[in-house]
């Protein structure tokens, strides 16, 4: 991979595109097989991005922001919008503009700039910026064993300590019923109890919490009352600054018991996750319209009560599997999805986020809740236990400040402007379509489409969206007339940063149009195979979810063959003549691994896991997503520096340590000999310090990965032939199986599978690609 060398392939713009030069026509574009897609991390930080303390100029016709690609007439004080060619006058405060005195946004290197917006600028006292306190509502499941509850309580207490002092905190616990804790009542602990088995509307929640119309502020904006220390909204009954309620909450947590409603033998605990979330949503809707807020749901099991139920209480009925979903034998699934879909709509309309921390050995309903989490841009973490490092680490990380901070932002709004012939099909990733129609909106929809604007209730530094484009053939006729050989894309992302400031980030991209009908040369060089693999994975996942009968493997194979047919060099019907340009050379392997990955081979996983994997696939950047598809393998041995190894069973060797990064899990695999040595304790003998270092090295590297990653991956340390080794073996190319293990060398390994190996896959691919 050529880009591998590049440590920051995304650059200042945080953008990766499947094609860096675009074919002119729809026909050509579809011949390219791989869709035109842009993967962008809208608010990824980069040291070079300037922050401007003013609002951008907007084109009066298409409202795109002034950018480095605009043509400026300094004498006339006019700029021409690169998207619509509208001529715009500079306003008076740009009067000083000249070729030597450019505003930041016109510097060519600043294709991405950030504006700090002040919604209610106070001209007299600019420093007195009303800050929007972030709001955190914890929604805690109490249907779990004491031990688990203890873990989650201590995690929560820790989190409370990490919250910024001014952040507002609310607390909802639930079991059979949902309890909203009134934190601002000092005389006695006061809890509003909502029944678990009855769906409840936002209005009812407001009414019942005593926050009826009197307590509600109709206009979105700042909770002035709160900020001025007044309590006119009732907000402060339920949401208190962290500094004020930490004590109350801690003691409340101390007393919090597991759900007291009896559980019949042979039954699951009755858990009203759905109602608890609706209530929390309603509470936020009442209290903080328009401000950034997140619901942090800590769930220890499946919802069995009321709306959002995913399984009956009867333990003899297992939680739905992929097979059940396929056979339409999951009676609760659709209803639950509908419920969470409506919850998502409500959250989005309020601009609030749902984060889900699910920790249970069985499924908890992530598959159903996915829609609400993903549409609101929430975080999701799936762990086995609240005591597990995956949960503990991730949860702590979420509230960490400083270097480690996730940079959680709120209320994001993404708008995309693009050149005339370009149509937006949709976005895959954590956002919601705002249904804002426009001339550049395509009729065909992929993901969140039919719009040129998206809401991202929650977003952070690593949030990444995939925008899929289409070329409009109807515009084609005009194209020749325009001399323009460049296409422009502009991404405007406004959001509330963790400090509560309103920011707007503008990224403007330009790429070249090519006429691929003439030559594919330029096209080929503009191909980003890693991005393409990820986009294919995302599109495949989406299709698997959306389309009832979709044979993902087949679809991927067909597309891969088409790619190879189009871009490979070969003689017809001569498989051996097949060669592929280096720009494409890795792509088949990605596809091979994608076919074997959890994204396509869902039957090895529960629907919850699949949903979890897909959400992360969709929101991570290209590099990370590529790791999910094709894990990286590093080998450690005495003889050499750590080096990447082939993701093949052949990489296993008795005297090596392997470090596999499959994104969700990190496996440290000790070869047989290494394991024996370690068991004999050589590493603690001074004369074998090198061995100790060798053992240590993969751990250090693993920790580095773990530290950077959210959610925290699961670390598996295993030995060759140990039971945990399956975590590694499952990811390796089965070049050696029990079928062909005759030539097995000592210390190597085989995989018990009937899956085809990469080599066989390639053989077939070549054969098919060259077929006429």
């Amino acid at each position, binding site marked *: 991979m050529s880009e591998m060398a590049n440590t920051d392939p995304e650059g200042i713009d945080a953008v990766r595109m499947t094609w860096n030069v675009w074919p002119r026509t729809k026909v050509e574009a579809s011949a390219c097989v791989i869709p035109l897609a842009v993967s962008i991390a809208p608010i990824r930080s980069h040291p070079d991005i300037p922050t401007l303390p003013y609002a951008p100029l907007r084109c009066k016709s298409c409202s795109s922001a002034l950018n480095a690609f605009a043509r400026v007439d300094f004498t006339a004080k006019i700029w021409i919008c690169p998207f619509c060619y509208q001529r715009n006058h500079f306003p008076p405060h740009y009067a000083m503009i000249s070729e030597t005195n450019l505003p930041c946004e016109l510097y060519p290197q600043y294709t991405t700039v950030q504006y700090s917006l002040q919604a209610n600028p106070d001209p007299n006292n600019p420093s007195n910026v009303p800050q929007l306190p972030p709001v955190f509502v914890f929604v805690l499941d109490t249907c779990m064993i004491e031990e688990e509850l203890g873990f989650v309580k201590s995690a929560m207490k820790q989190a409370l300590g990490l919250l910024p002092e001014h952040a507002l905190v609310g607390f909802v616990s639930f079991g059979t019923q949902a309890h909203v804790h009134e934190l601002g009542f000092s005389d006695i*602990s006061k809890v509003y109890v909502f029944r678990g088995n009855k769906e409840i509307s936002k209005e009812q929640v407001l009414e019942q919490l*005593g926050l009826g119309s009197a307590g509600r502020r109709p206009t979105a904006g700042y909770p002035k009352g709160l900020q001025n220390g007044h309590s006119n909204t009732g907000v402060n009954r339920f949401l208190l600054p962290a500094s004020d309620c930490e004590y109350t909450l801690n003691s409340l947590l101390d007393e919090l018991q597991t759900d007291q409603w009896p559980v019949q033998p042979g039954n699951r605990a009755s858990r009203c996750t759905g109602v608890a979330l609706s209530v929390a949503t309603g509470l936020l809707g009442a209290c903080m319209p328009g401000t950034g807020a997140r619901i942090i749901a800590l769930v220890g099991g499946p919802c069995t009560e009321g709306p959002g139920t995913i399984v009956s209480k009867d333990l003899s009925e297992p939680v739905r599997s992929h097979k059940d979903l396929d056979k339409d034998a999951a009676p609760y699934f659709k209803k639950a999805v509908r419920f969470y879909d409506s919850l998502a709509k409500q959250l989005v309309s309020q601009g609030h986020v749902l984060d889900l921390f699910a920790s249970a050995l069985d499924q908890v309903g992530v598959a159903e809740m996915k829609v609400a989490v993903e549409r609101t841009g929430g975080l999701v973490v799936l762990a086995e236990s609240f005591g597990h490092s995956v949960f503990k680490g991730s949860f702590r990380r979420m509230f960490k400040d400083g270097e480690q901070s996730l940079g959680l932002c709120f209320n994001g709004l993404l708008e995309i402007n693009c050149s005339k012939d370009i149509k937006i099909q949709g976005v895959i990733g954590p956002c919601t379509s705002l249904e804002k129609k426009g001339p550049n909106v395509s009729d065909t929809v992929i993901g969140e489409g039919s719009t040129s604007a998206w809401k991202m209730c929650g977003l952070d530094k690593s949030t990444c969206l995939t925008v899929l484009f289409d070329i409009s053939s109807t515009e084609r006729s005009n194209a020749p007339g325009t001399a323009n050989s460049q296409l422009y894309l502009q991404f405007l992302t406004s959001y509330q940063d963790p400090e509560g400031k309103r920011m707007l980030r503008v990224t403007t991209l330009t790429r070249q149009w090519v006429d691929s009908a003439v030559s594919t040369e330029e096209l080929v060089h503009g191909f980003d195979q890693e991005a393409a693999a990820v986009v294919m994975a995302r599109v495949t996942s989406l299709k698997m979810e959306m389309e009832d009968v979709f044979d993902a493997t087949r679809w991927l194979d067909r597309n891969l063959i088409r790619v190879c047919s189009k871009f490979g060099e070969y003689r017809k019907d001569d498989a051996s003549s097949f060669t592929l340009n280096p720009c494409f050379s890795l792509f088949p392997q990605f596809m091979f691994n994608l076919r074997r990955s959890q994204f396509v081979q869902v039957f090895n996983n529960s629907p919850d896991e699949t949903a979890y994997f897909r959400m992360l696939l969709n929101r991570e950047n290209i590099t990370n997503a590529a790791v999910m598809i094709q894990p990286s393998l590093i080998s450690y041995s005495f003889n050499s520096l750590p080096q990447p190894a082939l993701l093949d069973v052949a990489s296993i060797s008795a005297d090596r340590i392997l470090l596999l990064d499959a994104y969700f899990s990190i496996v440290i695999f000790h070869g047989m000999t290494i394991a024996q040595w370690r068991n004999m304790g050589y590493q603690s003998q001074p004369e074998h310090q090198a061995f100790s270092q060798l053992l240590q090295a993969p751990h250090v590297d693993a920790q580095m990965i773990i530290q950077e990653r959210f959610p925290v991956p699961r670390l598996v340390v295993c030995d060759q032939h140990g039971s945990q080794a399956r975590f590694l073996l499952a990811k390796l190319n089965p070049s050696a199986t029990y079928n062909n293990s005759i030539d097995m060398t000592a210390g190597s390994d085989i995989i018990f599978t009937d899956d085809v190996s990469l080599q066989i896959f390639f053989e077939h691919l070549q054969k098919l690609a060259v077929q006429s």
Partner: protein
Amino acid sequence: MAAPVPPGAPRPGANARQQSPHPNFNPNFQTNPNSLADNMQNMNLNRPHSMPNSGPRPSPFGQPPPFPQSSVTAGFPVASPPMSRPGPPPGMVGRPAVIPAGPLQSTLPANVPPGRPVGLPVSHPPPFGSRPPPASLSSSTGGAVLPSSAFPSSGVSSAAAAPPPPVGAGALPGAPQFPPPAIVSQPPVGPPPSMMSARAPAQAPTMRSVLGSSAASSPQTPPLPSASSPFPAMTQARPPPPGSPYGPQTWSMQPQQGTQPSHIPGSTHAQPPRMFGMPQQALPNQAMTNIPPALGQPGAPMSGSSKIDPNQIPRPIPNATPIVYETRHGNSANPPPPATSDYIVRDTGNCSPRYMRCTINQIPCTGDLLTTSAMQLALLVQPMSLPHPSEDPIQVVDFGESGPVRCSRCKGYINPFMKFIDQGRKFICNLCGFTDDTPRDYHCNLGPDGRRRDADERPELCRGTVEFVASKEYMVRDPMPAVYFFLIDVSMNAVQTGATAAACSAINQVISDLPEGTRTQVGIATFDSTIHFYNLKRALQQPLMLIVPDIQDVYTPLETDVIVQLSECRQHLELLLENIPTMFQTSTTAESCFGAAIKAAFLAMKSTGGKLLVFQSVLPSVGIGALSSREAEGRTNISASEKEAHKLLQPADKILKTMAIEFAEYQVCVDVFVTTQTYVDIASISVIPRTTGGQVYYYYPFSAVSDPAKLYNDLRWNITRPQGFEAVMRVRCSQGIQVQDYSGNFCKRIPTDVDLAGIDCDKCILVTLKHDDKLQDGSECGFQCALLYTTVYGQRRIRVTNLSLPCTNMLSNLFRSADLDTQFTCFLKQAAIEIPTCPLLQVRDHVTNLCINILLSYRKFCATVSSTGQLILPEALKLLPLYTLALIKSRGLRNDGRIDDRSFWFNYVSSLSTPLAIPLVYPRMFAIHNVDTKDGDESVLPPTIPLSSEHVCDDGIYLLENGEDALIYFGSSVDSSILQQLFGFTSVDDVPTQFVMQQFSNPLSKNFNDVVNVIRQQRCSYLRFALCKKGDPSGMAFVSCMVEDKNANGPSYVEFLVHIHRQIQMKMS
């Protein structure tokens, strides 16, 4: 279970309790002795003798009941036996004849002749010739004859008339034409009936003296209450009552006292010896009252009436000392003493009349005969009634696993009237007549008298009332624990008026009175526009408030921990109750979700059942069963309100009723304490307590100054009185009679049984009967009430109450054996049932007609007087017109009452016991400005005064009480030193609007407090005091209680008699 102790005064201890203090008994708490409660104990299984309260009483008194509630009888009108008149010496009452027609007064003594020999019951007196109306005086056999208007009124003396009787004067000036003497009595004619004639005026003086001096002899002098603050008082121990109250007095005294042998109900003959049981009654006594003919005449409308001496028309006479009453004598039923009198029952086969009494003590053999008499045939059943402390406790019989012996056909329980035959191998059911085999292990040979040899050793074969231990087959589940759930209104109004604080404080004090032990569980919740439960679990540092905000569709917020064992949560509970008023002090929630709150509380209690005690202060305005201010709507739409006024007395909708039925099904008994200053729609709210065996308490207008003490005492009595849970009751009758209907506070799901989620000693159920066949003359008709219930200590029991009455074919027997109190109570309850469904006018007419028809029947078929000029009243029912009049003028039947007052009234009536029914409409009035002038007699209560403004002086202070409320009336020129002594202020102008009893250190005040305490004790009620002064709006309340006066609500007593008489005359002709 102590009875509520009046703040000021401790209740006299009951002897009962002393017996064996309950182990748990905590002297500190229990100090106040409540005799009543104690009494219960003896009897009541529920509470083992333990009654804690037993006060300091010294030694248990022997038989003489220490404080009988009965003492009550002394002195008040209400209860008084039908005796016709003033209390001439004993014998007189029923006695006919003797009274000379002559001059009134002098005659008095004459009346006296003791028992008449008359042999037979006279059913049909021989017709008398025409009685000369005027001059001759009507005499009727047995009847008391009122002089016609023409006569000088002198003839009639009123019983208790305090004021100097006009009588003395002899003839009133009024009517010259007639000879003065008109009064009274006729010589007896013939054999028949002894008549009571209207009485001799002469007596009046005597009476007075008698009454005045001896008046009621209520033995006890309750200790002085410390008084000032209500609560402290309670704790005090009360001093032992002075000497033995009753003992001495009983019989011997009577004669002297002059008060008649009071016990003797007029109707029954008075036996000289007071024993009730005496069979002799053969005497027919008909007391007849003659009304002057003039009344009847159209021509001379009222003029005549005015001439009747109001002092001489029939009035109740209290009796003073308890009598001993044997329920059966020889082998026949003994008619019971008046319900309001003081008596001690010896159960000799029939049940105590406290548990069950019949409107007529002989059962007509046919329905036609009953119809002819125009009387009602009904039973008033009060199965848990509080016994007299001197009575033997009800015996408990345990048949072991097999359960009590029952008739295999009708399922009647074994009782003394089942007849064993065939050497005891079989028995015949007295109810259905079926012959069953005697269970082998229950077999016993018969003695020569045909009774089982062991009959006297087996309570179920010799006692009218026994309790059987219920075996497994009587339980659908384990007996429920005693669950008490308190639900308190904390809406803005409730908090601001102090109602919330009063409720919390009352509950807090009453916690210690809850039954001890692990079976006692409590819960508490408050509500305004949401419902707040509290987790009282001990592990929590402080109670956790759980709010149920969905008041349209409620639920319980916790499965456990909302209702907790008392022993586990006492501290939390106390802390919480102290905090609640302040916690909601700043609440601005005006809404109140009563319906939703009780529903939610119900859900919390559903698994066990129990008592739900609700404190409500405002109109339930939101949530399930929300109500609107119908009253106001009614006012704005006047035309509709007139026509449809009674609609406002019906529940607004069915929601609460449906809920109530569900509550009853799950054994939740609801009591509602309405502490309000506004309209709360009691008509709707009351459906819940009525259906679940609870009751409504009404404090309007609520005063934070004077009401908390009553609230506390009411609550305390509510919790401590004898009671049972999850009860089912059925009445069985002998063949020929069947139960027509039940009415009272219960839920009926199948026609034959009533379900009582809760039943207590104060609840009374009216059981109307009808014939479905003929009965055999000379046989007996049996009634059996079986109450299956769970005691507060978790035992399942069946209380079986048996009554067997003779059957008769003689109409006159029916009149002779009519039970006035029971009949009237039956009227009252039926009128109360009609109130919500009929226009008032119709109800009043109906009541009047009931009275007229009975008198008409008597006049037509039984009276020995044929003159149309006389109103002849059966002796037994001679007070019926007075009570009927009082009923017509009562709060429930008046036009001018507030809707809520009337709703409360008829709800109150629905469960009202017989002894309290009469005072409700015909309250007792006492003068209290001179309570210190005792005549050396031991009775605490001063003589009662007729409810007529003639007897109310401007310089007097009067106390009027009806068992629930008490009015203190100040004349306009009361002596300021008396005021100062009694109330601490000196001028009538200073009369406050709110009143708290205080005791000052002077004899007047002390006596006044004593009087009040005696009354409280008698009534088992703390009484709600209101101060009234003449000329003030507050005075109107008092004036409207003067039922003998003519006022907007009806005619005067005399006018009413005239009216009745005229009606009878019209119907006769």
